[in-house]
């Protein structure tokens, strides 16, 4: 049922609510009138008298503009509905030929010629454009009040008496207070900016039960978003549940404001009206609406691009960018919404077994392969550069000032995947951070720290002491990696396991990191592990129990003459 009629049959009426920036409102009223519309203006009674006089004088030459009785308007109260009702009644009375009425504010800007809107309404002459959604399905209201808007009482101002407002709501919830909704009404919510046919608006204003409904809505919260939206469901023949006015809110319930740089975006959105416009956005006011065409276009609005940009801004404010720690985003622990921004890999123990592991791995995968980034003596960037990605310094002191930022910065600023070596000798502050980060891939060969000790040539007493320390640290590390909070992808081998089939393990690691597993056949030079069994036995003999090395025969079969 499109019921298209010729555009000549459409006479648009405009109800305009203003409270400040009257000069701009007057300009908009003129644009409406020049486009052939009749306008009823309501000015907030709080607005200064001289400003109002100036506006009236400025519009005195336009008989199509009428001013309705002024009410004191406060956001969230029935006064706004009252003002709208009065202005609409005046409009319908003074201009009997008006066929459609659109509600706008003084800060609404027409993005297309008024004739376009008329053409559009001619195309769908029987439709009421009013966003009207049942309360259960809204989901966009601020403060979590949906249905309760209709069933509680709100004697306190949300803006000026916020604490009282909240406490009174809580109290009513606790005592399970509920107002009765008048029979025959199904609460609906929606954007306060609508465009109704004369028939529907007339029916709402002249409803035989209007006094009862008004009495009820007087105590509903933000009735300008529910009065017409609910009553239209009673009277309308055909509701098109969307608003012709582009009006976006962020998650604070604050309307989006458009500036000069939105000009192109607004133009290509094809919407009829937008709000809010920054009052000093001179270029928008100069260029919009464009002059009317000869043939008014009834094209559908296409605000998708604008919607996307605004949705992105809302997401930026609510969720932020993962892995970013900065001056205006400093999430508490576990509220990071992504601890880091991209996958990375941490290799524990490999560099102890293969002295040239770093260049070997760098040749085989598409990633930046660093040395021990968290080494106590300093940061070992790839190629041992003095500065790393993001101009990070190789100074250990700078890194340890805020290791989390160091890591997050490194990963966020790099295009390629970051891979580095880690061991129990390095700084351990980030163990929990990495283990609980979905982006982390942690490959561990436990006990590998013993290999350099085997070859160190240090006095055995020192070796025993160091081994005890390292083992303690590694046990703590492994405990974290086995905890139930683990989010990282981990693979753990013990040294004995690893030595049994080194190329198999390296192949699995390469495959995991996006390399060719067959490239593991060409193994890097491995440190000599002969004598490991004997070495471990010496540690045992010295009272230390090596727990993480796996199985090594005490007597090396090939070099059984060794040992003391």
């Amino acid at each position, binding site marked *: 049922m499109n019921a298209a009629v010729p555009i000549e049959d459409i006479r648009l009426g405009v109800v305009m609510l203003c409270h400040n920036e009257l000069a701009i409102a007057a300009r908009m009223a003129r644009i409406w009138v020049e486009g052939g519309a009749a306008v009823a203006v309501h000015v907030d009674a709080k607005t200064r008298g001289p400003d109002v006089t100036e506006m009236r004088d400025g519009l005195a030459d336009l008989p199509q503009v009428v001013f309705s009785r002024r009410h004191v308007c406060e956001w969230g109260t029935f006064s706004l509905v009252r003002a709208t009702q009065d202005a609409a009644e005046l409009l319908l009375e003074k201009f009997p030929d008006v066929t459609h009425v659109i509600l706008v504010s003084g800060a609404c800007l027409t993005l297309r010629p008024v004739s376009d809107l008329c053409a559009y309404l001619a195309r769908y002459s029987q439709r009421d454009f009013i966003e009207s959604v049942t309360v259960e399905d809204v989901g966009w209201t601020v403060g979590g009040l949906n249905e309760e808007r209709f069933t509680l009482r709100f004697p306190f101002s949300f803006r000026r008496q916020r604490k009282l407002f909240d406490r009174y709501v809580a109290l009513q919830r606790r005592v399970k207070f509920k107002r009765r909704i008048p029979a025959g009404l199904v609460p609906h919510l929606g954007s306060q900016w609508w465009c109704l046919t004369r028939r529907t608006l007339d029916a709402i204003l002249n409803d035989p039960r209007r006094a009862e409904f008004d009495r009820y809505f007087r105590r509903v919260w933000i009735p300008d978003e529910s009065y017409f939206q609910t009553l239209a469901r009673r009277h309308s023949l055909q509701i098109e549940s969307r608003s012709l006015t582009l009006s976006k809110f962020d998650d604070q319930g604050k309307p989006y404001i458009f500036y000069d740089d939105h000009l192109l975006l607004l133009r290509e959105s094809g919407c009829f009206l937008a709000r809010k416009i920054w009052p000093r956005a001179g270029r928008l006011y100069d260029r919009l609406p464009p002059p009317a065409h000869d043939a008014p276009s009834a094209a559908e609005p296409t605000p998708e691009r604008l919607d996307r940009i605004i949705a992105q801004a809302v997401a930026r404010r609510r969720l*932020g960018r993962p892995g970013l720690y900065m001056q*205006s985003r400093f999430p508490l622990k576990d509220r990071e919404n992504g601890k880091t921004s991209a996958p990375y890999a941490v290799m524990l123990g490999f560099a102890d077994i293969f002295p040239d592991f770093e260049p070997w791995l760098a040749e085989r995968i598409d990633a930046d392969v660093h040395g021990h980034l968290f080494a106590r003596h300093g940061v070992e960037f790839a190629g041992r550069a003095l500065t790393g990605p993001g101009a990070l310094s190789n100074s250990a002191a700078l890194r340890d000032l805020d290791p989390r930022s160091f890591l997050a910065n490194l990963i966020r600023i790099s295009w390629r995947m970051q891979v580095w070596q880690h061991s129990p000798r390095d700084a351990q502050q980030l163990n929990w951070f990495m283990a609980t980060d979905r982006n982390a891939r942690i490959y561990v060969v436990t006990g590998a720290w013993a290999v350099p000790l085997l070859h160190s040539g240090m006095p055995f007493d020192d070796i025993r002491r160091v081994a005890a320390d390292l083992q303690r640290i590694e046990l703590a590390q492994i405990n974290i990696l086995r905890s139930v909070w683990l989010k990282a992808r981990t693979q753990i081998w013990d040294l004995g396991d690893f030595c049994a089939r080194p190329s198999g393990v390296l192949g699995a690691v390469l495959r995991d990191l996006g390399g060719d597993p067959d490239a593991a056949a060409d193994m890097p030079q491995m440190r000599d592990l002969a004598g490991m069994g004997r070495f471990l036995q010496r540690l045992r003999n010295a009272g230390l129990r090596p727990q993480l090395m796996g199985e090594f025969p005490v007597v090396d079969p090939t070099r059984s003459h060794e040992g003391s």
Partner: protein
Amino acid sequence: MLRLFRFYRRQFRLRARRQWLLARAIRRRRALAAVADRTAAIRPDDILLFMVMRNEAVRLPYFLDYYRNMGIRHFLVVDNGSEDGGRDYLRTQPDVSLWLTRASYKESRFGMDWLNWLLRKHGSGHWCLTVDPDEFLIYPHCDTRPLLALTDWLDASAARSFSAMLLDMYPKGSLHEQPYRSGQNPFEIARWFDPANYSIRKNGAYGNLWIQGGVRGRVFFHDDPENGPALNKIPLVRWERWYAYASSTHMLLPRSLNLVYDEDGGEKASGCLLHAKFLSTFVEKSAEELTRRQHYADSHEYKAYHDALQGGPEFWCEHSCELHDWHQLEELGLISTGNWA
């Protein structure tokens, strides 16, 4: 119970601290002698700029133009005894109010007592930008929207303060290579910055973030980063009489003004103060400041600069970024548009 006690104890201490700061500011107002007081010309919605300076004449022409274009309507300047003609230059500017003091910079908490007084006297009810002569504000959309658009939006968002971290800019090559001429855009020379080497910690008592690092951390303080300069700044505040800057523009009281960051993962809008410190003028300046010993913590910062400058330090490294526009800074995550799309 104990938690409640601690909470009120902290409230009480911060309140006492704020009153102490304000009392200092009020007491030291006598140190300021008006050279040109044009504050009667300030209109209710004007955005004001507050600054202390000493021997910065060469920077002033560009500085004033930069902020005039941004929409600053009035400059309130304290001159700490300049000897280079900067005072005479400012005296002739129609939108500058100027005060002179020869009192100690250090004794006045590095000029903050004077500024707290001027802010209290002239800044209440205005959006006030407090910067040094070598700091240039850059904020999201600053190429298309004047500062007034930002402050209007902050008003609508019920925000009273705006964070703008200090971003140290430096030239490629040695500082002497490209001398700075008066009136020149300093960022034609100092075009480079460190994109991602900042460390952040939270200051529990005041609630502000404490940002360190950057090029100064990398070049001058790599062995002693704890003593590196703080880079967090909150320069733009809708001022009220009872507010006070507690330590430079790094933090304020009441504490709630310092909460310019989101802790639930979201991003609030923020900007940067581009810091044009490292120009050809820096070498003589650091020598002068070292002999005056008027800076924070016995000028150890300037000591570090002086020592390092003997070696002709190289600021630039292959990971430095060249400044293009605010989009780039927002992409890098140094500033954020928040929900100001």
